[in-house]
């Protein structure tokens, strides 16, 4: 019944790991050919792979794991998906209903443990209700603000036979509003018409709203000529090669993007949530602007930053209405003032905040990413990352032309996310070039998935910027803790080439900038998983940076400016 429900929901891929309490479902999986099952090596990997699959395809990702440790291992992935609003459905086995509460073997209170890290979860105790709950799980996961859901199925419920009902449009009371309030939309259009220093600030909500939303966004941005910046989660909604693109904003965002946010008079937040990585010091955040906030989740509005024009609705629907109203009122903007605003922005751009110098025989991480960008940008390319400095550099130095091409753990910041995510992406796009930009420490957190990549012939490229350090931790210790580098270096690292070969994969090591291009080409051209050990400068810091407790216009641009920049109040922030 479970497999039938998944097939009827259009699922073609399931990531999972069997165990005692989920064997009846695995027996069903064995006896069919419609759904591919990807055997991961750890349940955390299954959830991240499902996240990568969901993010890259726009379809929900599905996991199947067992009770107890299977479920608890899934918790990190569930929390990650909750923070980044990724639609995934996790099915967990549970001990039989008559043993629940008896501390049975591999029993855990799965719905209790996962309640705060799912959008919703269910424990199904009656087989007759199972199919309806599974269909509702897909509805809840993908409607409104997407998120992870979990269905816990006791083993006796799996064994029993019950009546199956096919999916039908959900009749539950959970039907989030998608159309924005027209009065508010008209107020926003009026603000667009008169704004002197406008900026679009977009986020992952645009990706989640579907490719149509990105098209509408591009139309609106290009028609108004307003500058646009994006959060880490929203990269690709507006093309990096577009005229109006300012680059990413936030803690490690571009100078021009943050200065534009600070100095604007109209901020149009589309599907972003004023995260603390974006706002910096709240009371100094964009002090002179009127702020419009479009979000499908009413709780995002006024949570951190007061919205002057709040609009609850789906980004795609709201953008469509904005364009309609704006066009019907004569496509007006204050073009003279906006041109002046652009000349100010162009001045900020001359700071060239991402400049670096590749000299000597040690590869700079920025240079490695610049070459990776140059040699892969014309491919059908998907990028995943782990978490840390390499993630920020990837966001800064790689260009994304389309949504769903960039998979990274933004909200939770989960080291170990990228490798399994890249496996999920490759499952969704078997012929594409899938690269995971990683740090050596993050990559080791889920390295067991190399077995998965080999077993299913998934040619994922692991591009490891190896500085033998927890680079971001090291950077903070340098800036904040008197250069006392407590446990932030990686000792006893494996020989990554031999490690790759031990799994039957290809390993490449590169330490000389002159060899880099050839090595990257070798990685791209190899038909199979590649572990690329790129030895980079060990003490490079990630700039620009807004230090904790500072405002957007107080960015650090380089090493010279870092002395004593974070005060006692800022140092308690993360």
């Amino acid at each position, binding site marked *: 019944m479970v497999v039938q429900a998944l097939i009827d929901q259009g699922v073609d891929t399931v990531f999972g790991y069997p165990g005692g309490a989920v064997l009846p479902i695995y027996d069903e999986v064995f006896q069919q050919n419609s759904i591919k099952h990807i055997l991961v090596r750890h349940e955390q990997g299954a959830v991240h792979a499902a996240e990568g699959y969901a993010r890259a395809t726009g379809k929900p990702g599905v996991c199947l794991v067992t009770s107890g440790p299977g479920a608890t291992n899934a918790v990190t992935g569930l929390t990650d998906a909750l923070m980044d609003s990724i639609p995934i459905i996790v099915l967990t086995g549970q001990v039989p209903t008559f043993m629940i509460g008896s501390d049975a073997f591999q029993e855990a209170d799965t*719905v*209790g443990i996962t*309640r*705060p890290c799912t*959008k*919703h979860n269910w*424990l199904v105790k009656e087989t007759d209700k199972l199919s309806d709950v599974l269909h509702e799980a897909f509805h*809840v996961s993908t409607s*409104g*603000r997407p998120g992870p859901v979990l269905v816990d199925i006791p083993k006796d419920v799996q064994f029993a036979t019950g009546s199956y009902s096919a999916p039908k449009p959900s009749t539950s*009371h*959970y039907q989030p*509003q998608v159309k*924005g*309030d027209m*009065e*508010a939309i008209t107020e926003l259009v009026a603000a667009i018409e008169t704004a002197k220093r406008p900026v679009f600030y977009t986020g992952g909500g645009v990706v989640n709203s579907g490719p149509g939303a990105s098209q509408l966004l591009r139309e609106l941005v290009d028609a108004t000529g307003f500058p646009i910046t994006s959060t880490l989660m929203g990269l690709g909604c507006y093309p990096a090669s577009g005229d109006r693109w300012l680059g990413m904003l936030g803690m490690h965002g571009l100078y021009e993007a943050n200065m534009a946010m600070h100095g604007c008079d109209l901020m149009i937040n589309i599907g972003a949530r004023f995260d603390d990585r974006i706002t910096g010091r709240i009371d100094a955040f964009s002090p002179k602007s009127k702020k419009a906030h479009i979000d499908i*989740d*009413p*709780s995002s*509005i*006024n*949570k951190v930053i*007061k*919205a002057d*024009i*709040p*609009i*609850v609705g789906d980004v795609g629907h709201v953008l469509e209405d904005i364009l309609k109203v704006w066009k019907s009122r004569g496509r007006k903007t204050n073009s003279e003032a906006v041109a002046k605003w652009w000349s100010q922005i162009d001045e900020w751009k001359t700071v060239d905040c991402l400049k670096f110098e590749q000299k000597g025989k040690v590869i700079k991480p920025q240079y490695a990413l610049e070459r990776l960008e140059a040699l892969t940008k014309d491919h059908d390319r998907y990028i995943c990352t782990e978490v840390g400095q390499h993630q920020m550099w990837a966001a800064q130095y790689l260009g994304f032309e389309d949504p769903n091409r960039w998979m990274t753990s933004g909200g939770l910041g989960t080291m170990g996310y990228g490798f399994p995510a890249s496996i999920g992406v490759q499952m969704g796009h078997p012929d594409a070039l899938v690269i995971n930009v990683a740090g050596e420490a993050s990559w080791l957190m889920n390295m067991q998935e190399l077995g998965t990549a080999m077993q299913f012939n998934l040619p994922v490229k692991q591009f490891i910027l190896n500085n033998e350090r927890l680079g971001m931790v090291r950077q903070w210790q340098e800036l904040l803790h008197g250069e006392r580098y407590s446990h932030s270096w990686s000792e006893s690292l494996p020989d990554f080439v031999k490690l790759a070969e031990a799994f039957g994969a290809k390993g490449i090591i590169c330490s000389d900038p002159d060899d880099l291009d050839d090595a990257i080409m070798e990685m791209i051209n190899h038909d199979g998983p590649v572990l690329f050990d790129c030895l980079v400068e060990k003490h490079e810091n990630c700039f620009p940076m807004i230090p904790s407790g500072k405002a957007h216009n107080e960015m650090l641009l380089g090493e010279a400016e870092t002395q004593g920049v974070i005060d006692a109040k800022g140092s308690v922030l993360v």
Partner: protein
Amino acid sequence: MSALKLKKGSTSHSAYNLRPTFSDVVEKHTLAVLVENEPGVLARVIGLFSGRGYNIESLTVAEVDHQGHLSRITIVTAGTPQVIEQIKAQLGRIVSVHEVHDLTVEGPSVERELAMFKVSGKGDKRVEALRLADIFRANVVDSTLETFVFEITGAPEKIDAFADLMRPLGLTEVARTGVAALPRGD
């Protein structure tokens, strides 16, 4: 319609009408939350309050519509206007929650609480306790030669006042139900 122009059932309202001032004044609000009567729903609501660091001053819950599988949770909470708005919005996004009503801003409402007080004493104190109970319209629901159990119903403030009076007279145990509240009129 409330002072904030909140439509009834604020899970479906437009946030356009939702413009709290970011003031620091802590206000006490009574929320009525209609939820699906299913296992774990109370844990979802309480987990939201503990997980996000909100206050619960009192909480009552009971099924109110057996056929519709609905329970009503009445929560008294305190916070700045921004926090109160967040609490309502966060409650509204719990999948099992049907409606969230802020009785404090959605027009006048009546609040009642039931409490039981055990008072033990002899002589004058015992007589005085009985006399005060009469004034507060509290009923004696159990009596021994040295104790009374009083039952009192009323607004929380009235129950607080009664507790203050009973304390010097030998108050030994208190049980309170928490607030149940309904809007007045239609």
